[in-house]
């Protein structure tokens, strides 16, 4: 059944695969993307089969669920145990904090509700006297929504636990880490719908590698990979837009203004990577009345437990594939996950395990 903007015609896929084969250099090429939805699309559609053996594409820190610090989860658990109604996206419910996941907290009797939108959380807050807290996770695609709601006269019993992050800054950090060896980035399509192209240029221009913004249909992804290889062939490295139907140079100005009005940049901790300056958001002073950390007096330390053998840190920084981790598929599976890459349903390890990424038929 065709859906609008479905771009998955196998004949064109073959043509793009041929283009990729023509453009690819004879030497190994490592392309990194930073979006769980890209990894889902690549794995679920079996796109790696269209790539020559020397062209590799892997996921970096593209799963905001996976990189949410343990301290944030602990904060939300604490808030739920204090009796507040906690609203969260579905994929956050199984990520472990120091003690519990949100799902386990709910089983204990706390009121934790899965919502599809922060708007639903506000709706819940209007219908009750109890405190309602929204766990605001996500990159720049999701940050404008939190801002919009806070600017729209939310009820006084509503607050947010801010855990939004910025992806271009993380992309730059990866390029400075030893051993990442990234020759090109497939930049996230919907984040770019919001940001436009400038933030990538600002963060990544000095590295002179191809940065191609790609969409999420199978053909979009193959096309973006072809453009990355074309830049490599031509010895150039600049920001290129392979997703013009959804991304303009300047991005979504209304959304950018919303973010700018409500949030300011701050250093935040990325699980598995560490602290990255200016890579996250915190509420500006005039909005701190809605800061759940202040309202519930959360004080937390950041730090991840390191589990011997777990290579999540390497997977998140694109220095290893899930299959390179000795625990993958044996001690670490979605049913008994060890690290965040397996727990977060958009983590590379979870996707590879569930959708056959570790081996190609």
């Amino acid at each position, binding site marked *: 059944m065709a*859906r609008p903007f479905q771009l998955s*015609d*196998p004949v064109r896929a073959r043509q793009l695969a041929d283009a990729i084969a023509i453009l690819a250099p004879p030497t190994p090429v490592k392309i990194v993307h930073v979006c769980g939805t890209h990894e889902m699309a690549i794995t679920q559609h079996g*796109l790696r089969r269209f790539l020559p053996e020397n062209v590799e594409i892997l996921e970096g820190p593209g799963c905001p669920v996976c990189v949410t610090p343990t301290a944030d989860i602990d904060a939300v658990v604490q808030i739920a145990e204090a009796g507040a109604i906690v609203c969260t996206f579905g*994929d956050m419910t199984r990520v472990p904090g120091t003690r519990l996941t949100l799902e386990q907290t709910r089983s204990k009797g706390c009121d934790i509700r899965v919502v599809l939108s922060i708007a639903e959380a506000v709706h819940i807050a209007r219908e009750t006297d109890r405190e309602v807290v929204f766990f605001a996770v996500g990159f720049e695609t999701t940050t404008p929504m939190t801002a919009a709601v806070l600017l729209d006269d939310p009820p006084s019993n509503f607050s947010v636990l801010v855990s939004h992050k910025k992806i271009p800054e993380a992309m730059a950090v990866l390029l400075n880490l030893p051993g990442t060896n990234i020759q090109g980035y497939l930049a996230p399509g919907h984040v770019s719908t919001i940001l436009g192209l400038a933030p990538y240029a600002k963060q990544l221009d000095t590295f002179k590698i191809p940065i191609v913004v790609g969409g999420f249909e199978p053909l979009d992804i193959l096309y973006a990979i072809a453009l990355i290889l074309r830049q490599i062939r031509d010895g150039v490295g600049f920001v290129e837009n392979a997703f013009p139907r959804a991304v303009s140079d300047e991005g979504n100005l209304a959304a950018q203004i919303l973010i700018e009005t409500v949030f300011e940049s701050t250093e935040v901790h990325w699980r598995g990577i560490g602290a990255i300056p200016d890579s996250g958001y915190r509420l500006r002073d005039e909005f701190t009345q809605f800061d759940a950390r202040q309202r519930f007096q959360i004080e937390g330390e950041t730090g991840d437990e390191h589990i011997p053998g777990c290579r999540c840190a390497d997977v998140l920084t694109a220095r290893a594939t899930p299959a390179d981790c000795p625990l993958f598929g044996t001690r670490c599976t*979605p*049913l008994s996950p060890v690290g965040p890459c397996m727990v977060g349903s958009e983590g590379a390890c979870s996707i590879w395990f569930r*959708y056959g*990424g570790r081996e190609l038929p």
Partner: protein
Amino acid sequence: MTQNNDRISPLHGAGGAMMGQLLAEHVLPHFVSSQVGRINLSDMDDGATIALPSAGELVMTTDSHVVKPIFFPGGDIGKLAAAGTLNDLAVMGARPLALSLAVIIEEDFIISDVDRIVKSFADTLIGSETPLICGDTKVMGRGEIDGIAINTTGLGIADPAIGDAGAVAGDVVIVTGSMGDHGMALMAAREEFHLETELISDVASIWPMIRTILPVGGIHAMKDPTRGGLAAALNEMASKSKTTIELNQPAIPIRPEVQGLSDMLGISPLEVANEGKAVLIVSPAVADQILEMLRKHPLGHDAEIIGHVGGEYPGRVVLTTDVGGRRFLDMPLGDPVPRIC
């Protein structure tokens, strides 16, 4: 003690006059009398009898149902329980002989809801000409059980019974209709998602459709893809027969609404439950004939050939994707949740 006549009380499960009244007014009237044996439901004896046919294998199956919500678009727990058990028999190749119905109801449950549920159950049985011959009623206190739980046991006769392990290389894989309807309809019905759609559960007894194709023969394996969806059913069938099931994704029928929900929520239609469908693995000699016969039946209108059986990766399912890629389709794990990434 004043009785709230609208709601279940502990006395309704106590075996005395109150329970007798509940059964007489709200349960038994929904069922037709059975001729399957000498002692049956209306006798209210300790058990019921079935006169067994002289040939064939006796097939027995049991299921418990605790679905939430109890009433959902396209059906309710009563219809689900009846269809679920009838379908388990049908995909074993068994003509249903009789069902039992045991309910455990929470105190304060609304009695008219009991009526609704039992009527749904009874209507589903009538549609497949199957009698209810025995049952049981229990009541638990407020909070000790969530609403209602139903167990059904079904007996059928198959000649021969068809298992799920008999696939051989060269066989053809057929589904009787669109995939993912029930699971997605229930997901869409969750109040907090604020979605409106005409998509309803596909819950239905498929015995009237399956009985038409059994005489053809050549059906090597059959399964109903309930929890875990098509992906779970096919993985079991591949694993038990040690064959490879090669699936052609573009051929799998998916309703537009199911595709829309899948795109919105990030949940695959191949991993969610179907309650009115079967997957068949048949000899290539009969595949076209069986497909045609399925399509003649209203429940099989959208039947399709979706793959074939090979041997390259014993025990695995391989998916050729809509864009022409290939990947393994593995056993799904647990209940899917909507995602943002």
